[in-house]
């Protein structure tokens, strides 16, 4: 486990990576209003095996703030949806990693994180925004999110396998 000062430096690094990926995601055209690929979850997936839960949750908060700033949604209700989805996703990914360990690869953790994020946002939409209409958006939202989570998790797993930089960060 990296020492405290190194931890702070790494948190800033991963946070900046989240901010960069959030900006990249903004440039990708979306066919549906609710669709989000969740590219900014990649640093969280990468950090799961290297850092403590407090680090992961701090990173998730930085990601939420960064997405609100670069997306211009910081003072809108969309920020609440983004925050709920991101925090639900981070908690589920962290919990599964801690509880199931090696029985889950980053592939399964990525899919589970996407599912948690989407469910949190669907239920928020059901009770605070769309009413019954939320059930209509749920199926495409879940399928697209699941595919995106699969691809992101697969990428993270391959990156974990092949990155020399990650291997020098202190693999447990």
């Amino acid at each position, binding site marked *: 486990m990296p020492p405290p000062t190194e931890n702070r430096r790494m948190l800033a690094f991963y946070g900046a990576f989240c901010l960069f990926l959030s900006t990249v995601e903004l440039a990708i055209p979306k066919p549906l*209003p609710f669709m989000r690929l969740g590219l900014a979850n990649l640093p969280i997936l990468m950090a799961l095996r290297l850092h403590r839960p407090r680090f992961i949750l701090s990173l998730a908060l930085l990601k939420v703030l960064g997405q609100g700033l670069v997306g211009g949604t910081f003072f809108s209700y969309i920020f609440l949806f983004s925050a709920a989805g991101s925090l639900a996703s981070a908690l589920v990914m962290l919990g599964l990693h801690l509880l199931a360990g090696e029985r*889950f*690869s980053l592939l399964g953790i990525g899919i589970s994180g996407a599912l948690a994020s989407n469910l949190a946002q669907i239920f928020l939409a059901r009770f605070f925004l769309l009413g*019954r209409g939320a059930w209509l958006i749920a199926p495409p939202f*879940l399928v697209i999110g699941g595919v995106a989570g699969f691809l992101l998790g697969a990428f993270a797993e391959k990156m974990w396998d092949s990155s020399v930089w990650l291997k020098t960060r202190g693999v447990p």
Partner: protein
Amino acid sequence: MTGPWAIRPRPLDWAAVAATVLAAALFSWRAYSGEAAEPMLYIQNEAHSWVYPLDREGIFPIPGPLGTTTVVLRNGAALVEDSPCRDKLCVSMGSISRRGDWAACLPNRVFLRIDRRERGGEGIDASAY
């Protein structure tokens, strides 16, 4: 599967896939099940809901926090003709005409859906019908 992009899923990865498929199936059942009834157009903004039979024709200005979203209902199909949002995803979604279809302008908080007629109205503004 071999090669540089080979993926080796672990046992619980399949459980995550199954949970996602199950959730999508349950929500599909929740959204699309029920007796076949005359489909209606539901339009919602921040404060109100309006419901129209699909055989009606009209142009409906729907107010939202950014301005007015223009919804057109014509020939049994509805579409967002214009909205004051940045990306215009709602406009590019095109027309909706079958039960389960929807379109939304998230920035202006306007949501359209085609659904069966609801008993009790779910807060529908009766004067708008």
